[in-house]
């Protein structure tokens, strides 16, 4: 083969994890991550019996910027964590956000391998007593040998859908309001583990800033009509229900679907369910980019994006979302315009301060979920930068 036939490697990442037994009940784990951008090392000690983190030390050899070193002290916050239900999520949330997601990933990798080791050690200890016991059995009986996040994902809260809230009573505020501004995309805790705002705080903030209503669109969590009704009465505020569903083509806000949607669903299949239920689908943050670069930098043009088949399967596109950049929102708006699709706004709030950053202004009065779907289908609405407008008004 000629030299020129070889392709250039554009990125390499190596991860090495080594586990050894320090004493009868202590495992030592050394993890190294080395790639084109980062070089870091972690040393973790875990108890063998409890799989509890006893100590952590980390260091950067190379990093993205001069301030990455600030992440190291936060690693200590995971000392005392025990592997088990919710472990991965705690590490990702606490270490991943306060410290660094690469350190968090490597810490998890070290802990999973300690768990593997604990199983191998148990198998070695038990095979003397039970010579027929295979390593396969030990690994399999305890489930997945490494991937904690998957387990956590599978056990995420899922409540049976008890819809039929189309006839929910009117919100007093909604009754006296003609034009209505509703935040169609809101996440609350603990229904959405990624959110830090309780539903009560979220509603009170929405009321305080003058929204006319919010739509709870928690991930993989469906509020029952009774729960929402209680919240409406308690807060005297219009609360509607939707769901943010992950499909093979990205996240979709779905309204008016009675059937519970489990796991990841193909967009085409979801479309069939929504059509059957007479509901409505909004493609959420369709061009959400990556943290340090956007879709534009990959050379994606509006024309090319318009060719994506997924747009055939939705009723509207969210073109104002506070979790994406202005450029990405603008790009979504241009694509939606090119395809002549309806457009909406929603904050995608995961914290109280995010509620109402963007919302949708409806010309029609909306008092319940039936009104919402009717209004969405009618198309008399526009996305608005609500908080910004609020500042200007005050």
């Amino acid at each position, binding site marked *: 083969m000629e030299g020129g036939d070889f*392709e250039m*490697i*554009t*990125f*390499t*990442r*190596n*991860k*090495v*994890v*080594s*586990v*050894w*037994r320090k004493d009868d009940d202590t*495992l030592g784990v050394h993890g190294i991550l080395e*790639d084109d*951008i980062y070089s870091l090392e972690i040393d973790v000690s875990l108890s063998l019996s409890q799989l509890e983190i006893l100590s952590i030390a980390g260091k950067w050899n190379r990093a*993205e*910027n001069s*301030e*990455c070193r*600030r*992440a190291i002290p936060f690693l200590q916050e995971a000392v005392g964590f025990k592997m088990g239900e919710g472990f991965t999520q705690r590490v990702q949330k606490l270490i991943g*956000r306060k410290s*660094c997601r690469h350190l968090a990933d490597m810490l998890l990798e070290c802990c999973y*391998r300690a768990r*593997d*080791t604990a199983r*191998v*050690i148990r198998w070695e200890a038990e095979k003397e007593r039970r010579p027929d016991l*295979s*390593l*396969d059995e030990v*690994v*399999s009986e305890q489930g*997945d*040998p*490494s*991937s904690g*996040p998957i387990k956590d994902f599978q056990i995420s809260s899922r409540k049976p859908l008890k819809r039929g809230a189309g006839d929910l009573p009117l919100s007093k505020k909604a009754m006296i309001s003609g034009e209505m501004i509703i935040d169609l995309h809101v996440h609350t805790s603990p229904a959405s583990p990624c959110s830090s705002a309780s539903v009560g705080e979220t509603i009170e903030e929405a009321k305080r800033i003058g929204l006319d209503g919010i739509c709870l669109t928690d991930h993989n969590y469906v509020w029952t009509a009774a729960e929402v009704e209680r919240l409406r009465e308690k807060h005297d505020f219009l609360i509607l229900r939707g769901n943010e569903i*992950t499909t*093979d*083509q*990205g*996240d979709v806000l779905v309204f008016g679907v009675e059937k519970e949607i489990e*796991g*990841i669903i*193909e967009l085409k299949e979801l479309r069939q369910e929504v059509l059957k239920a007479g509901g409505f689908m909004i493609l959420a943050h369709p061009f*959400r*980019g*990556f*943290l*340090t*670069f956007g*879709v534009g930098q*990959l*050379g994606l043009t509006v024309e*090319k994006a318009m060719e994506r088949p997924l747009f055939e399967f939705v009723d509207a596109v969210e073109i104002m979302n506070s979790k994406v*950049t202005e450029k990405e929102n603008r790009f979504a708006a241009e694509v939606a315009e090119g395809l002549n699709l309806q457009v909406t706004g929603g904050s995608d709030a995961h914290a109280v*301060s995010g509620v109402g950053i963007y919302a949708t202004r409806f010309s029609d009065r909306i008092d319940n979920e039936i009104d919402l779907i009717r209004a969405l289908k009618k198309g008399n609405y526009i996305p608005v930068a609500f908080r910004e407008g609020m500042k200007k008004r005050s």
Partner: protein
Amino acid sequence: MPEILSFSRNICTVVEQIGDDSMTSSCRLQDTLMDAYVEISVKIPDLEISGIKGRLERSVIGEKIDVEDAFKKIMGTRVGPGIRKIIRGFIGNSATEKQLAYMVEECCSGLILSFTKDHLKQIPKDPKKAKHAFENMVKANPRLYKSCAALSPGSPLVDNIEFD
């Protein structure tokens, strides 16, 4: 007392540019319990997965896995935010399938980081200019603010930034 290893793992992920409009990302995992290889191909600029293959060389877990079948649903999805959830949702739930899903995730992370690297290369070496570049990056993408210790209040990189 010699501290002999009880367990070791090596994972190597490599991203290659194949022509102007496609890339491949491969992941080789070798540890005490298993040895596997996964490779995905994506089309630029959509980063749509146009090909995916894998093989299981060795595993202490006796289950029979049709690797190609496990990957079938991933074809056509786009590498982007949220891809982890999609991969985990589509590739099966057995212990081996979860490992394969993890390797697909590593391939996707490699691809994303290869673009991140290109972006970071544009940041000047001069500390003052670099600080300014990071500030602008955070201003352009508020999701970065408080996303890690380096970009949280108290860090000089975000000194001049205030979000509501």
